[in-house]
């Protein structure tokens, strides 16, 4: 695994500190209460080195994550009106209905969850990264591959064909960082998400958390560490079960709250954290709007105290005015909880908003990976450029919609089948820069100024700096053509 180099945008807080702060339950909010210090303390002092003791300590404190009723009362005393919808001021951590108790509790859960992971030692690459950059990856995908057998046609013989859904995917995410994985349908991004969450077994490759491998078949404790949020929030809840049941269930299953009252308290708190109120608990999924459900799915994932959130198209099914709510919520959660977040999306706009780093996938491979400021604004890989150019921009002085169509060779705009991917670079049949070598050899990854690119011609293809100019240049040649078409 090539250790991805550190490249954070300026606005990011120092991640290591952020992670530590999250664990401590400080930093984000003011003074931790005594109870928080109790439950979160051991996790810090003992750290990774003595998980055994740590776990015992956590258990002694009611398994860490258990919220005492006192915590909730505490929050009430702060005079926060639970009914105030925080959309109005989403970015402010204070005054939006989230008490310190919640932060501490979830941080403690995260600590407990991390202890469930086997002690480090396996992930050499990750320690390298730690030594080199100071950015500590929480989650790492290490050369993941996944093939699916193709169901055979009636009466056809021959060897079983394979869909090469995911082909050698490696990346990592640090605490307090959002990695966006962008690509079009069928590029394998959802399969990656499922492998990260332990729902699909990789054909080859590993998923590591804190340098230790998470097996494909995870224990309940390990399962909590990486939480997947699926695309359609309406389908994510059992349509015949109430929201209360859905939110109590994970707490009960993992023994994260001592009794029904504690579970209710934890559920109410988390529901408020995502900007809803406890009356939502009484509803059935069909009585809620898409935006509310999207937030409730997030709330449910947060209840088990994950360290990593994997979001599969979190905003794709939402209306434009609701998308913004979810985007702001995710940014806030990242900052407050120090979560490592992987966002799988085809919406470049959303990815630009959210991501610190970004990966572009095409036919099962990550073709470009690096800081979002570069990858999502001035990409180097021809596919990434085509993808970006095809994103409609709200530009009333428009230059025509079909920039991307012009970039591709005429009429060859079809994504090839993943059953028989093209030889060499999978993009070469559609690539304007393709040469003979592209059809023959799979390009190696090369580093260009902190960006990992898989292209034979990455160096040639314009190394301009500055976000917009590169895209404009890449697209310029075609503008005339499309203007002529109009």
């Amino acid at each position, binding site marked *: 695994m090539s250790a991805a180099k550190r490249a954070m945008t300026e606005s990011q807080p120092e991640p290591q500190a952020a992670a530590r702060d999250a664990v401590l339950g400080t930093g984000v909010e003011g003074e931790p209460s005594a109870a928080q210090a109790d439950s979160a303390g051991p996790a810090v002092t003992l750290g990774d080195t003595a998980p055994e003791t740590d776990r015992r300590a956590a258990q002694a404190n009611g398994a860490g994550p258990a919220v005492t009723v006192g915590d909730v009362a505490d929050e009430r005393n702060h005079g926060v009106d639970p009914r105030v919808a925080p959309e109005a001021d989403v970015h402010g951590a204070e005054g939006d209905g989230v008490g310190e108790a919640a932060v501490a509790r979830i941080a403690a859960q995260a600590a407990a969850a991390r202890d469930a992971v086997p002690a480090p030692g396996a992930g050499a690459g990750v320690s390298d990264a730690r030594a080199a950059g100071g950015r500590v990856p929480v989650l790492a995908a290490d050369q993941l591959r996944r093939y699916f057998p193709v169901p055979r046609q009636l009466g056809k013989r021959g060897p079983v064909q394979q869909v090469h859904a995911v082909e050698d995917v490696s990346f990592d995410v640090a605490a307090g960082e959002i990695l966006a994985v962008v690509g079009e349908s069928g590029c394998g991004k959802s399969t990656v998400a499922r492998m990260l969450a332990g729902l699909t077994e990789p054909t080859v490759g590993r998923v590591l958390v804190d340098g230790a491998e998470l097996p494909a078949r995870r224990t309940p404790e390990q399962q909590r560490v990486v939480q997947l949020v699926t695309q359609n929030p309406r389908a994510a809840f059992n349509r015949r079960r109430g929201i209360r049941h859905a939110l109590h269930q994970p707490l009960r299953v993992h023994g994260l709250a001592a009794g029904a009252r504690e579970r209710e308290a934890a559920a109410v708190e988390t529901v408020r954290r995502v900007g809803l109120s406890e009356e939502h608990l009484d509803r059935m999924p069909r009585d809620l709007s898409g935006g509310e459900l999207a937030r409730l799915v997030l709330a449910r994932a947060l209840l088990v105290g994950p360290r990593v959130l994997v979001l599969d198209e979190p905003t794709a099914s939402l209306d434009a005015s609701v998308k913004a709510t979810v985007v702001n919520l995710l940014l806030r959660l990242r900052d407050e909880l120090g979560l490592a977040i992987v966002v799988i999306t085809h919406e470049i706009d959303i990815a630009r908003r959210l991501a610190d780093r970004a990966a572009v996938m095409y036919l099962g491979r990550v073709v470009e990976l690096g800081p979002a400021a570069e990858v999502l604004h001035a990409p180097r890989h021809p596919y990434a450029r085509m993808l970006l*150019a095809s994103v409609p921009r709200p530009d009333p002085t428009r230059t025509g919609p079909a920039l991307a169509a012009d970039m591709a060779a005429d009429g060859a705009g079809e994504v090839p089948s993943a059953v028989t991917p093209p030889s060499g670079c999978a993009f070469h049949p559609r690539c304007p820069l393709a040469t003979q070598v592209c059809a023959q050899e799979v390009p190696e990854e090369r580093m260009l100024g902190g960006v990992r690119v898989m292209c034979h011609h990455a160096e040639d293809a314009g190394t301009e700096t500055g976000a917009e100019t590169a895209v404009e240049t890449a697209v310029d040649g075609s503008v005339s053509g499309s203007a002529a*078409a109009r």
Partner: protein
Amino acid sequence: MATTLEPGAKPGTAAPPDTASDPSPGTGPNPVPRTALLRVRELSVTYPSARGAVPAVRGVSFEVRPGEVFGLVGESGSGKSSVCSAILGMLPDGARLDAEGVEFEGRDLARLRERELRPIRGRRIALVPQQPMTSLSPTTPIGRQLRWYLGERLDDPSVRETLASIGLAAVLDRGRDLPGAFSGGQLQRLVIAIAALAHEPALLLADEPTTTLDATVQAQVLKLLLTLREQLGLAVLYVSHDLAVVSQLCDRVGVMYGGRLVETAPVAELFGNPRHPYTRALISAMPAMTPDDRPLRPIPGSAEGANLLPGCPFAPRCAERVAACDTAMPATVRVGRTRVACHRVPDEEAK
């Protein structure tokens, strides 16, 4: 129907059809004739439900000129697709259509019966459906379906050439395959080609034709629509929820909310100087329209039930609401080349 919902407002008089005083639609490629191809006046659609009739479209008026791409934007439930179905006379059973007129080529579509509508459908007005994957019969080979719709034109070399030029040569070669064997992009292009080429209609109704498609495929489809518009002189009514797409494709845009058309304007005008608070909120909720260092501004509240409000449908979520917004439906007024239905706009203009 519509007038009862609109106390004190006679939009027809307040905002006369703007063809007369708006000679140049600006960005369109052709000098646009003054007569509208399609003129929808005070269109209302009501659906029955267990709890009584639900208005989906309320007093919508707009027009599409020859060769123009007119965008109809709105979030889910705003009624935009119902407008589309109403024009074709293909509302579901039980739905009620009221209109002062849906005039198209000298006939009022709202008054025609099914039998009289049939020769217009497909021939003068064609539909590009939302779901390319399911809009062709899944059990019939694609070649035979092409034959159904295109008939002898399928043998016409120029038609074949056009099909090949939009990347459908492969589809022609694989005529014995079922639709399921093709990608969504191929099918959507095929469906558009069928709609546009079968009888070369004057108007294409595109009901969210790219919603289910990927970005690069969407770009191809949009380009195809523009090419066809250019080659065949089609007018397009483009229904979408995506402001960004609409901004790139359309000459004029109508914004729908809660069954009402709240603002209609040329696209540059709409983005450059949005008049209705909803339009403004919608634009500023777009990630691409907000500077990176500022948080996104979601619109508070939800659109649910907006189509039942007696006053302005956007009133409960509007930051600029005044007392009249809750009780009276604002009249549609003309401001420059924009037509907008907002109580506040006349005040502003007066300043």
